[in-house]
């Protein structure tokens, strides 16, 4: 695939961001590619997915364009302090990518996938902006960010979500009820709690990961067929 490292100003978070873009090898004139956006975990950056999974092996075969994006420490949601990482992910980024590259601008060709806190961000994206995506996937996602309070988590979760008691009210709680198909991939440690969480959900499926290459296994499964409802 063609690998493009983009540095641009992002209006949502009001900062400069990096984006790693992978385009299928031989884009033909006029053709536009479906887009999968990949979100990193806490303590990581946009390169996590490309370092921990052989993305090109699967994406090139399926003809999918990839965008690995930075979320800094935002969990990819609009923070109470005014940094609109969620808007950047759901609106600004797909628009920018389709403006520069031969990437589809249609919501039904856009997917988002994340790991850990990035998994939370991916699920929040489709919960808040179901019109912007065809679906989402998460690997070992943080399903309830209230667990981050009172830990040594940096930054203090209060700077992202506000008071622990008002998560639901401020819209930072995942409902589990989605309007687009959602896949959750979990290792043994996270599997039971995710299954329990998904029981009351809607349009959400939980799958067990069998290998230690969590990101590669989940990515491969999602790109090859998991995106279908």
């Amino acid at each position, binding site marked *: 695939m*063609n*690998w*493009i*490292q*983009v*540095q*641009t*100003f*992002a*209006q949502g978070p009001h900062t400069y961001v990096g984006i790693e873009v992978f*385009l299928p*090898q*031989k*884009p*033909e*004139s006029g053709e*536009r590619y479906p887009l999968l956006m990949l979100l990193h975990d806490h303590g990581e950056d946009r390169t996590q997915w490309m370092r921990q999974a052989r993305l090109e092996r699967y994406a090139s075969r399926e003809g999918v364009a990839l965008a690995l994006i930075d979320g800094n420490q935002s969990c990819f949601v609009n923070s109470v302090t005014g940094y609109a990482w969620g808007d950047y992910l759901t609106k*600004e980024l797909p*628009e*920018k990518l*389709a*403006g*520069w*590259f*031969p990437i589809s*601008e249609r919501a039904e060709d856009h997917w988002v996938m994340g790991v850990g806190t990035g998994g939370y961000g991916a699920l929040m994206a489709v919960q808040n902006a179901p019109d912007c995506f065809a679906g989402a996937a998460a690997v070992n996602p943080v399903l309830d960010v209230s667990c981050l309070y009172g830990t040594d988590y940096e930054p203090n979760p209060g700077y992202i979500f506000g008071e622990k008691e008002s998560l639901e009210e401020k819209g930072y709680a995942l409902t589990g009820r989605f309007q687009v198909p959602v896949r959750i991939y979990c290792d043994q440690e996270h599997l039971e709690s995710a299954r329990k969480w998904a029981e009351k959900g809607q349009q959400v499926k939980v799958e067990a990961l069998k290998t230690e290459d969590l990101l590669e296994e989940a990515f491969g499964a999602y790109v090859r067929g998991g995106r279908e409802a």
Partner: protein
Amino acid sequence: MVLMRFRIHSRILQMETDVWALVPGPEPLPKHGEAESWKVLWLMHGGVGDHTFWLRHTAIEEIAGAYGNLAVILPDAYGSSCVDTASGAMFGTYLSKELPTILRRMLPKLSLKREDNWISGFSNGGYGSLYLGLTFPESYGAVGAFGAGDKADADFTKIEQEKERLFGKGDLHDTPYCVSKLAKELGTSGRLKPIICHGCGSEDPWRDMNETVRDAILSVPGDPYHYEFRIWEGLGHSSACCEAAIRYFIQKMMGK
């Protein structure tokens, strides 16, 4: 502007290579199909340089970013002087044919029009711009060649092997590497001809070589290149001259 760092595969060079690009933005862009295209400055680095040169040593982003519809493409030509080398490596064909094809597929807004595509560079990249513009005149509407003499007039006594690798043995004045010869031949042919803007600093140690090329181009009857030669007073063969020259060339081509 938006910086894009491409890692692409060149079949001609048989390698993975770097290309950097500055493209308009980051404001929201018109959607595909809407009437917008970017003029394209293909900008070549010098002999001791790479694709990062112009960004690191000049204010190219500020200069080009003032227009909003100009993209700057910064390829890595290694030590090739941008030519199809005598020993086989086809850098000229890569830069003028393959690279535009690859990039236009990935950046559909790059203008396809010849008059919107300009080749420019400093030092070896300036020579390379003349070589490319005169060898592939159908690809470029204009050449901006700065700090640029003719390799056929250069002294290679200390780098004889390197000279052989790039340009072959012997005198170069009757070869496709002599830009004065290329200018005369193309100038009297029926092929398309790029505008040529050429010049160097007044203190450039190779100023005489620039002037030799100037005289050769001026000797072509009818001024088919709408040729302009400039001297930047007080500047040498330096990044300050690079910046002054590219600022002038971009203003000239953008018409303001």
